[in-house]
């Protein structure tokens, strides 16, 4: 876990590799190529790279037109602009016609830090999951990001891949193989399950480790890089086998991973749940770690969540055993 790399660096690198192998790939950006790292592709393949300036709506429409003409299109900007600024365009021009456009959005979540709320994408995952036809991926680390981007390039249809600004620990080993639509068990456990995505995965592992060491609580840890479609099987197995679930995401409570998991669980196997997510409020400027703390997105918050669901599960058990 010593190595760190940002998922957006993995993006730039992977784009260039893809561009070498496949002349059909075209990349768009909206005046943030130097930040999203799509510029790496632009430098290498200037004729297949279009920087559209500050015009996110136009970028999405152009992406659709290129895809309708047979191109495999990657389009990048910051996550907040990629989702919020052009939602109707995504809906009309890409989602419904299921065109072959991959929105790869950097700067997801509040770890963007000092730029403040205008640059913090806290609702993008929910928004993008509201687009029928879209596959939505939040990679755990740079290793997974690279593979998810390759998977998206290989499959027809619309994808949204959410990347992060800061360097983050590389969690997966080199031999790791990303499988679209599948959760990954990072740690077995029986008392409760933590389902985490993106930058929360490292914190979930830390929380699980400390809960085991200090309190003897044995947590399963899953990552669910494909937020849509969900790996319902893994969720229901976790519900059955561990009887309690905590989700953890760098996103609003509304519409994100937690809300999606809650619907699956409630539909089939209701168990106590806790949601580690951003409450209904915009964040501000600050260091990423400070903001994570303010927003309740720390290992301690996850630990509290686990303690809560484990307690409620125990009460429920006691109730069951005792009868009414």
């Amino acid at each position, binding site marked *: 876990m010593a190595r760190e790399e940002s998922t957006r660096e993995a993006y730039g690198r992977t784009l260039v590799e893809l561009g070498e192998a496949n002349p059909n790939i*075209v990349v768009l950006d909206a005046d943030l190529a130097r930040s999203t790292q799509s510029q790496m592709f632009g430098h290498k393949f200037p004729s297949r790279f*279009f920087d559209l*300036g500050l015009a996110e709506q136009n970028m999405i*429409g*152009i992406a659709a*037109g290129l895809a309708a003409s*047979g*191109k495999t299109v990657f389009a990048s900007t910051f996550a907040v602009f990629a989702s919020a600024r052009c939602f109707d*365009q995504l*809906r009309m021009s890409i989602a419904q016609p299921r065109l072959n456009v991959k929105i790869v959005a950097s700067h997801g979540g509040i770890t963007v830090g000092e730029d403040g709320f205008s640059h913090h994408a806290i609702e993008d995952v929910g928004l993008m999951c509201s687009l029928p036809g879209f596959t939505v991926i939040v990679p755990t680390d740079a290793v997974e990001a690279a593979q998810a981007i390759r998977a998206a390039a290989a499959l027809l249809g619309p994808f949204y891949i959410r990347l992060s600004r800061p360097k983050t620990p590389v969690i997966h080993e080199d031999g790791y193989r990303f499988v679209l639509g599948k959760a990954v068990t990072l740690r077995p456990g029986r008392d409760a399950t933590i389902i985490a995505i993106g930058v929360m995965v490292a914190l979930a592992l830390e929380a699980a480790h400390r809960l085991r060491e200090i309190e003897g609580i044995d947590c399963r840890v899953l990552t669910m890089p494909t937020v849509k479609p969900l790996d319902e099987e893994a969720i229901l197995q976790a519900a059955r086998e561990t009887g309690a679930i905590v989700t953890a995401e760098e996103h609003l409570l509304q519409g994100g991973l937690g809300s999606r998991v809650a619907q699956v669980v409630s539909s089939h196997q209701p168990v106590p749940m806790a949601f580690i997510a951003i409450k209904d409020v915009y964040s501000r400027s600050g260091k990423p770690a400070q903001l994570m703390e303010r927003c309740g997105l720390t290992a301690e918050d996850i630990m509290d969540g686990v303690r809560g669901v484990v307690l409620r599960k125990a009460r429920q058990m006691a109730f069951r055993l005792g009868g009414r």
Partner: protein
Amino acid sequence: MKIGASSPGGSLPDKRCGPTSASAGNNPAEAVSSLATQKGQDRPEAELERLAKSLRRHIITMIGTAGSGHTGGCLSAVEVLVALYFKIMRHRPQDPRWPERDRFILSKGHAAPALYATLAEAGYFPVAELPTLRKMDSRLQGHTDRTITPGVEMSAGSLGQGLSFSIGVALAGRLDSKDYRVYVLLGDGECDEGQVWEAAISAAHFKLDNLTAIVDHNKQQLDGWCSDIMNLEPLAEKWRAFGWQAIEVDGHSIPQILSAAEQARATKGKPTVIIAHTIKGKGVSFMENNLEFHGRAPNAEELAQALKELE
């Protein structure tokens, strides 16, 4: 999804549709300019006028049958569609996704019935299908849907998005060294949308001379006259300042539309917009310039009356 070539309802023989005819065929030399190649097979203007009238009849019948739809903005666009599909564009009704085809993108998606009538007359699907407009499970959706209707390039209905899409298609043509041309039809009210101007800047920046926009300048939007709701004038000046060649024509004069398209084709290094001055509801006396018919269907009586006017 594949359907018979000739429509039962009186469509023109498909050889008239540009290079699908034997004479234009697959010969790339001939395919370069459909305007040019079609010179020899020009149909008399009167025939095009009859075609326009027949499209108008289809349109009001479809919308009247459906009981809802946007009559006014369909009728104003008829001559533009006739000129494009029966004179200007090379396309193959039996092979709607023919890679070399010229593209037409209907940005003002609420004029879908006008496009459907045109596509049916051109042979993309049977004219008999037109009355299914807006009905459950019809291929003819209330607004265009690229996933189910042969010949429809883009899903539309939320206005302001077609020019961007067209730029993507034009860029792809350039990347693939194809010589197809891209035509896109916008409403004038639609030009209120900022995305249109984002797109306009970028088309000029990319010097997309294979792209021609047409604005159906019927002077009305949904809530009233454009000059009252949101004044667009000077419209041609706006496009020029955004780096486009702008040509103003009478949008009900097919010769004027053809000559503007020819000028667009001849112009290198910049996109062209044709500002087609039109009359909303054109062709039916009580619909012309009548705001009510922007988004309403004729009732049975009105339909009968209108059809009489269009005999």
